[in-house]
């Protein structure tokens, strides 16, 4: 799993599961240093519109980022919303996975769960949406 893919899945994970696993990561006494944040701010959504393919700034999206150093490895996370604890926990998990420390496999499992949850949510969503597709009848 690439680091970017892992970060994306951790950005989507539930707060409680992130914090529980991050607590487990640092329970062995590994040294943690908070390098950035956790800081709430905005990510400006830049869009390339499809007509003339020109860029414009649509607006800002609330986000929270954090950066930590865990056992000499830097971890970074950004999530939408303003949940500082979740962003900090995600950064700890990124560092843990980067360093190949003992909880790496559990982090991969968490990411798999998040991905499966997303698939399930989307297929449930489509099950609700599909009946609203218009089916035309030809009149002869």
């Amino acid at each position: 799993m690439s680091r970017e893919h892992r970060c994306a899945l951790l950005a989507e994970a539930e707060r409680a599961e992130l914090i529980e696993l991050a607590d487990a990561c640092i329970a062995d006494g590994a040294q943690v240093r908070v390098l950035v944040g956790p800081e709430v701010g905005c990510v400006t959504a830049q869009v390339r519109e499809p007509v003339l393919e020109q860029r414009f700034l649509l607006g800002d999206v609330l986000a929270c980022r954090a950066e930590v150093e865990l056992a000499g490895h830097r971890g970074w996370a950004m999530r939408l919303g303003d949940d500082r604890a979740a962003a900090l926990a995600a950064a700890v998990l990124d560092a843990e996975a980067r360093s190949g420390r003992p909880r790496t496999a559990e982090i991969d499992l968490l990411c798999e769960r998040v991905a499966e949850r997303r698939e399930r949510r989307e297929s449930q969503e489509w099950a609700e949406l599909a009946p609203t597709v218009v089916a035309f009848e030809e009149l002869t």
Partner: protein
Amino acid sequence: MGYSGARGGLEAILAAEDLVRRKRDHAPAPWSSTEQITTRFRLAVDRVMGEAGLYDEPTAADAFRQAEGDTLEASHLLRAQRSTLPRLAVSEPVDPGEMTVIRRIVPAFREPDGPQLLGRTSDYTGRLLERPDGPPEPAQEDARTGNAERTEEQRSPRRFMDLLRKMELLAEGRTADDPEPHDITRKPARPPADRSAVLAAMARAESGALVALWYRSILGPDGDVHEITLGELRHGRLPLRVRHPHTGNPVTVGEFRVTEAEAIEDLDGADEDRTRFDIGYGLCFGHNERKAIAMANLDIANRRFGRSGPLEQLLLLTIDGLDSGGFLEHLKLPHYVTFRSMVERKQAMRAAAEAGEDPPARAAGPAGKDCR
């Protein structure tokens, strides 16, 4: 009359604010939680996010509750909150073609690529008021709750515009340059402005103002909008990506919902290619179809007539709800001194007229010039 200073009113102001808080927060009704507002008043929440220019449903819901349902006031609160926040990043350019659609209609063409997906809408049914005595019965499980596979064409269908382009029916306006977009939150846009500034201004415009300007452009004196067909309308989710600070690669940090519209314009000007169409583009936060459609229409109208008439100026200077609403609201603040001087001028002129003097030589200014 001379000028005299005055003080007082602070206690009245505090009492007035306290009255708002008590009546709102301790109303004899169950508390409206943030979640309740985001789920039951989703369109109002979306409108507030769009007009504030800040996407976060819980924060917008809190603003909506604090503003007692006044969407403009809620947008004001949200924009004020946004002004306290640092900019963490500018996203990688979002490609709206990546949208996971949850509603997508193509009014211009019966069977486009991909589905005519009505989604969650009451567009096609009668508007009859329901007056329930209480909450409805718990929802029944039905066949629609389950799992279903979705093809890529169903998830992100090809644009109708691409079909027009393939048929060589679309005027080509794309150029090789890629100018940096104008940031209207840092530098106010004034005519003449880049299209990016106009699009950004419309994206966070007050919805009613944008629709009113669109309607004025059809029925009003300007006539900037005519033979327009709505090509496509979408509501869905887009991924937000930033550069990972360690790897330098794009990373998705979440998704946000938008409404997107494309308006097909029949080119008919003497110096236009009358064998082709052109397209206006609209995109705004959340689910706000009226706004996106008006924006798309006004985008193409602005590209055609923005500089030859007042449209660009109107779009840049008059559609922001905080600007217009703020100016209007300020009229409620004390203007005692200003008005007193106006009374004195009237009295002086009357006295001069009664004394048989000529009126003052200074010509009166145009109406409305003094109101700021």
